[in-house]
């Protein structure tokens, strides 16, 4: 079969190969780069979790689990959500263990969307929401947020994009790439719009533990929201377990069952080693999580203060381990800035445009990197700007 004859699905063909692929290859091919472009914790998974997973392998836990995931894990998550957020989901009917939140996003979109259904996705936002919605047959309506309003969704912005035929909305807070999160009050205002327009809310709250200035409110805890929310979370960020690939979805039984149907044919189940590690994570890692959070918070303060000092305007993000400074006053575009910074100073950052066209004029800096790296990188950026 030659290239011309090869028939790739139209949706896939249309999927953006992400215009900055070339930039990424550049970074990966370069040596001695300080990368602030990494979307995962720099901490290694706490040892109690690793040790417990090793022990379970030694004992021979290497099989499939039930499609929905180990009951013990679902039950532990259920208790955790109840204690932490007064959020009650039955481990039997309202919960599915997935291979990371990424799979959960895919499942929920496929479970609810009919061809042509419209779905609201923020711009900028995490890279997978738009293509995966399209793969599921949805039509994406991008909600443009901008630096002027701190990249925050408001009822006003929502209403601007809500039209007939919109079925669902994807929320992500604290948000990758902007670090933006919402207070309970802000969420209440948004929830009124969701309820008024009868939308399904897909809420990706994977960074919830990394909220620094107030306590995180799951939107499902607000009145009238639980029955329309699919709550997505996982172990990657809070417990530094990205490679373990364990996430979960909680929501109305009808949607979770539909997601489970797809999951049983496509993924079958999340890896058992990861699930066993996750059980230990919930059992005995509270201190490690707090310690990592304190460290992230100090880095956040440091980096925001330095960025503003060297002339890149940067607001204090409420959560995650990202900052999203403006580079507008340099006169360079995002990709241009990132490329030049890489070549001249060997510091890698992600151009804001990787997350949508509204990211133009911004870069994402991940401060999930040692203080030594951050200090050095800030010096190099300062030198670059001179």
């Amino acid at each position, binding site marked *: 079969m030659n290239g011309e004859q090869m028939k790739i699905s139209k949706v896939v063909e249309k999927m953006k190969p992400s215009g900055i692929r070339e930039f990424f290859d550049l970074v990966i091919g370069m040596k001695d780069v300080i990368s602030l472009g*990494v979307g995962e914790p720099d901490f*290694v998974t706490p040892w109690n979790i690793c040790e417990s997973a090793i022990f379970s392998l030694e004992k021979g836990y290497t099989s499939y689990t039930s499609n929905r995931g180990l009951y013990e894990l679902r039950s532990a998550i259920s208790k955790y959500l109840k204690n932490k957020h007064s959020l009650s989901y039955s481990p039997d009917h309202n919960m599915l263990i997935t291979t990371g939140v990424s799979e959960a996003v895919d499942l929920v979109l496929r479970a609810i969307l009919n061809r042509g259904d419209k779905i609201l996705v923020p711009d900028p936002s995490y890279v997978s929401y738009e293509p995966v919605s399209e793969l599921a047959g949805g039509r994406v309506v991008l909600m443009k947020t901008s630096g002027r309003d701190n990249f925050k969704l408001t009822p006003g912005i929502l209403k601007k994009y809500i039209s007939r035929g919109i079925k669902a909305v994807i929320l992500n807070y604290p948000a990758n790439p902007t670090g933006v999160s919402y207070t309970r009050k802000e969420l209440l205002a948004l929830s009124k719009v969701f309820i008024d327009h009868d939308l399904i809310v897909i809420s990706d709250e994977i960074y919830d533990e990394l909220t620094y200035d107030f306590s995180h409110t799951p939107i499902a805890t607000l009145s009238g929201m639980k029955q329309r929310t699919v709550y997505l979370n996982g172990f990657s960020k809070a417990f530094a377990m990205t490679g373990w690939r364990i996430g979960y979805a909680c929501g109305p039984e009808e949607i979770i069952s539909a997601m489970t149907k797809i999951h049983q044919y496509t993924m079958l189940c999340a890896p058992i080693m990861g699930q066993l590690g996750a059980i230990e994570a919930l059992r005995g890692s509270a201190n490690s999580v707090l310690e990592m959070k304190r460290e992230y918070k*100090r880095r956040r303060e440091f980096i925001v203060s*330095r960025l503003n000092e060297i002339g890149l305007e940067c607001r204090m993000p409420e959560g995650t381990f990202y900052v999203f400074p403006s580079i507008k006053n340099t006169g360079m575009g995002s990709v241009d800035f990132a490329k030049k910074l890489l070549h001249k100073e060997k510091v890698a950052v992600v151009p804001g445009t990787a*997350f949508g066209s509204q990211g133009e004029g911004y870069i994402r800096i991940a401060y999930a990197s040692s203080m*030594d790296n951050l200090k050095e990188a800030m010096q190099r950026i300062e030198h670059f700007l001179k």
Partner: protein
Amino acid sequence: MKEILEILEKDARTTPEEIARMLRKSVAMVKKAIKKYEKEGVIVKYKTITNRDILKDDGQKVRALIEVRVTPQRGHGFDHIAERIYRFPEVKSCYLLSGSYDLLLVVEGGDIQEVSSFVSERLATIDNVNSTVTHFILKRYKADGDILKRIERNNRIAISF
């Protein structure tokens, strides 16, 4: 301001300016707090953690853990006798413990003979020292929270979303 201690315990080289940024405090406030901690003895010293095992040609020092049973003294408890012992420069650490013996020492010397003679001639002969048990340290894996072996850490992909 206790977080200052946490930061310095992790990296004593962190400057007051950097700490001030991390904690969103003024540099003057941080400097003042550090001065106060130093004066009160909360901050004892700034030192470097080394692993000299890597320097193959270095005159390797020998360390031993020594369990010491002593008789406490009326009016002073263990403090006096402990001081008699920890004043020796060979004694690198000294702890009072609960359990089957009283003091645990880390003693350092140029070689096994040196440590042995310190124990038999100096330590064991002190009044109120009843008995000692010496354990020579064969290998140090972790010291004060730091793993001494270099661990390959940087295996994340350089860019991810």
